[in-house]
């Protein structure tokens, strides 16, 4: 048993010290009828080399973004992951530590989270950010719950421009508190502001919009904020921080809470998880925030140090009155993001945004030229856009796999309104060569 240190001889010694004859004696409190009388029916143990061979084969059945040109988005993106990240997160002192409950022996983790909070606050344009939540979707849900708690109102309006997968999670989280969710329709790919205005009321705790939205279109956040605030509701903006090196920070546009998915910041796609839930707020809301917060303080000698703080918000102290039930978060993904932002830096993160924009627009133009293909919306977009195809997107996607291209996400599966829609994402990693190959393959597939 390579993962079990004690040998049979040692086990006997220990039993003798304890004063029992066998491990069975230690299990005496478990009634016979409670005992499993047979070995577990799971596959037999495999040697490491057999296991590696097996999983190499199994994993090879998946279309990975190294061997396929990945134009998939919708909440997970193939952005550059600089080489230092994996080397640093694998350092055991980071990797195998728990939540920093003993701060004196956890300054490494605490400092990196403090850096992370600073970076997220800066990118979103907010005053404070927490130490992470599970993912973008649950962050939006927690934001709605928080708005509900802060405003003591029982309804929320969510734009149809918010990722439909996120909206489903919000619905799940709103079930318990019985928060009524209304959705605001789109016009030309962005939230219909008149409709939004009509849908808010004195019961509205929050208005939720995404920037850029699910279809890649750039919403008018300011206007949405004015509508929300006029009704005494909070404005929750869903945004991906990797885009905020170039785009205007929602904090500058009136957001009260900025939440979203941080996977783009150096976290591998890994079939959708673990991801990185970003959560940032205005200063006055800090004591109502979900999740952990790291604060700066001093030690007995007056030396700078860092601790988990404002823990009275949390479940292990406040229990059923906690601001959230979250305990384990995604600290390691936050560390990846922190290293990512450090490596990319002020200049690099902007450049990531510029390259993505440039390539996405080049691709959109090229694809829109193809007979029968249209851009679904007229609104200005960022790195992602929707195409309307003359035939079933599923068939097209399937066909382009043969050309080692992951063509996009058929919208139908996520939002029935767009029968022939295909959502295409273009990050800075896609090359002109790949985009041109896509255009050619798409032309062929539609011919």
């Amino acid at each position: 048993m390579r993962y079990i240190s004690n040998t049979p001889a040692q086990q006997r010694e220990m039993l003798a010290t304890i004063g029992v004859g066998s491990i069975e004696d230690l299990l005496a409190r478990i009634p016979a009828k409670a005992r499993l009388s047979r070995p577990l029916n799971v596959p037999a143990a495999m040697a490491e080399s057999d296991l590696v061979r097996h999983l190499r084969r199994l994993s090879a059945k998946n279309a990975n973004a190294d061997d396929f040109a990945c134009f998939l988005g919708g909440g997970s993106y193939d952005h550059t992951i600089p080489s230092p990240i994996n080397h640093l997160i694998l350092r055991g002192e980071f990797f195998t530590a728990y939540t920093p409950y003993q701060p004196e022996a956890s300054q490494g983790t605490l400092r990196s989270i403090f850096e992370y909070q600073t970076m997220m606050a800066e990118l979103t344009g907010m005053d404070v950010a927490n130490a992470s939540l599970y993912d973008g979707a649950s962050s939006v849900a927690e934001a709605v719950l928080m708005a509900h708690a802060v405003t003591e109102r029982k309804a929320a309006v969510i734009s149809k421009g918010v990722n439909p997968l996120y909206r489903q999670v919000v619905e799940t989280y709103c079930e318990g508190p019985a928060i009524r969710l209304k959705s605001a329709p789109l016009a030309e790919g962005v939230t219909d502001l008149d409709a939004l205005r009509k849908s808010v009321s004195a019961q509205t705790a929050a208005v939720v919009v995404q920037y850029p939205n699910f279809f890649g279109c750039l919403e008018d956040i300011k206007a949405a904020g004015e509508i929300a605030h006029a009704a005494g509701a909070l404005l929750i903006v869903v945004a991906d921080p990797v885009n905020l090196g170039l785009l205007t920070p929602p904090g500058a546009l009136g957001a009260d809470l900025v939440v979203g998915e941080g996977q783009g910041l150096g976290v591998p796609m890994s079939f959708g998880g673990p991801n990185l839930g970003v959560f940032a707020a205005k200063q006055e809301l800090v004591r109502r925030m979900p999740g952990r917060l790291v604060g700066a303080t001093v030690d007995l000698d007056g030396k700078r140090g860092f601790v988990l703080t404002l823990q009275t918000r949390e479940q292990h102290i406040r229990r059923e009155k906690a601001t959230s039930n979250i305990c384990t978060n995604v600290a390691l993904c936050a560390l990846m993001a922190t290293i990512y932002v450090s490596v990319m830096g002020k200049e690099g993160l902007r450049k990531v945004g510029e390259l993505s924009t440039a390539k996405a627009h080049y691709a959109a133009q090229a694809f829109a030229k193809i007979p029968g293909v249209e851009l679904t919306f007229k609104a200005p977009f960022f790195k992602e856009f929707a195409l309307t195809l003359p035939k079933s997107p599923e068939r097209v996607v399937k066909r382009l796999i043969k050309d080692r291209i992951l063509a996009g996400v058929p919208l139908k599966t996520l939002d029935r309104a767009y029968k022939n829609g295909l959502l295409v994402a273009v990050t800075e990693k896609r090359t002109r060569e790949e985009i041109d190959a896509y255009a050619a393959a798409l032309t062929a597939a539609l011919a």
Partner: protein
Amino acid sequence: MHTAKPGYDKLIFELSTPGRHAHSLPECDVPVSDPAQLLPAQHLRATAAELPEVSEVDVIRHYSRLSQMNYGVDTHFYPLGSCTMKYNPKINEDMARLPGFLRLHPLAPEAASQGALQLMHELALDLAEVSGMDHVSLQPAAGAQGELAGVLMIRAYHLARGERRTKVLIPDSAHGTNPASTALAGFSVVELKSEANGDVDLVDLERHLGPDVAAFMITQPNTLGLFESKIHQITEMCHAQGVQVYMDGANFNAILGITRPGDLGFDVCHFNLHKTFTTPHGGGGPGSGPVGIKDHLAPFLPTPVVVKDGDEYALDWSRPQSIGKLQAFWGNFGMHVRAWTYIRTMGPDGLRAVSDNAVLNANYVLRRLEDHYDRSAPGPCMHECVVSARRQKKLGITAMDIAKRLLDLGFYAPSTYFPLIVEEALMIEPTETESKETLDEFCDAMIQIAREARESPQIILEAPVTTPVRRLDQTGAARQPRLKWTPPAKA
């Protein structure tokens, strides 16, 4: 003999120098590269975000040094009770990094993700077998989300049967997430007093059970590390009143192959793959909290469900009664790969040996410490033991003080002040991966501290002194929170 080395005290921002950089990005290879020509002006940042400007060597050296300010399982014994800080196998990491897993997009066509779907399907089956449950959803991101999913399914179940049950019973020994998740699911929490050893008080339970109770949620083994022996009685009492029974599976490391929640009558239980199944804690997460259920709750499983039909694997979205989604995608797949790898590495006998040795190690520690610290309960424990520093408290030494002193002696600390029902609790979970040699060193240290409490308490009260910082001002931190770095200028 050692004296202070100038401790490293930088933040990445403090290494920043204008114009320095570590990134490597390609030149733009398409004609129009200026965003100003592509996007309306109001969408472009007026001023660049104030982010670090450092070189790659700055980054590597900074985070390598920060890492050295941490204790981790790879460098230290980490007996943090209830957290199962066992060794995290390196092969798990290699497997999770196979390009077909690591670089797979969640919305890739099902035909192009068969390997991933198959792995998830197999893991769910294995976890169902381990727990004796009928179905397992891998979607919850951690234990607490597993709890939320479980309680929401219970809620949906009752509603589907036209029953409006508003209360959930939870013992006072429970972990904070239990009441928090339950409240989040819309129930009012009724706290039950446990017996001294954490056992359920059946009389009290009987008194509280009723048509308004949706569920009873307990941790098995309980948070004192004891197996609730009256469990069948409990589940039967509950079921007799239409009450669902939820098992918090955080302590699964005690019972692998020994007993199964499903066989004990539980309707729901969650797993913490980051505890029992060796996925790393990473300084606080990510975790993975699959939830297992009995058939009668199946209609309410989170969507989508990974299904197998013939040799094809698929995501089944058409589940009208589902509680819906908990995460944007399918769960923390990276953790699923690690857990799958671990289960395949161990096999049935290996998994059983895990719990046998976890229990043995905990009882060994308990035996060695019981003369020096107060036991929280008589008899053998399961995978962890809770002792009380009640005795030391009388001498002015708290559980917290003992924890700090342990740091100086080269060990991470046990969980302190949990469970709440044990005064000055020290909750010690050695796990099966630790050797007798390590346990002896740890017990010697604990015994030394008990002696110091009597003979030289000052050294304990001063501790820690070998760590990068000494005890920190928590109150000051909370009074006026400084939650981000601000440049000296602006400060």
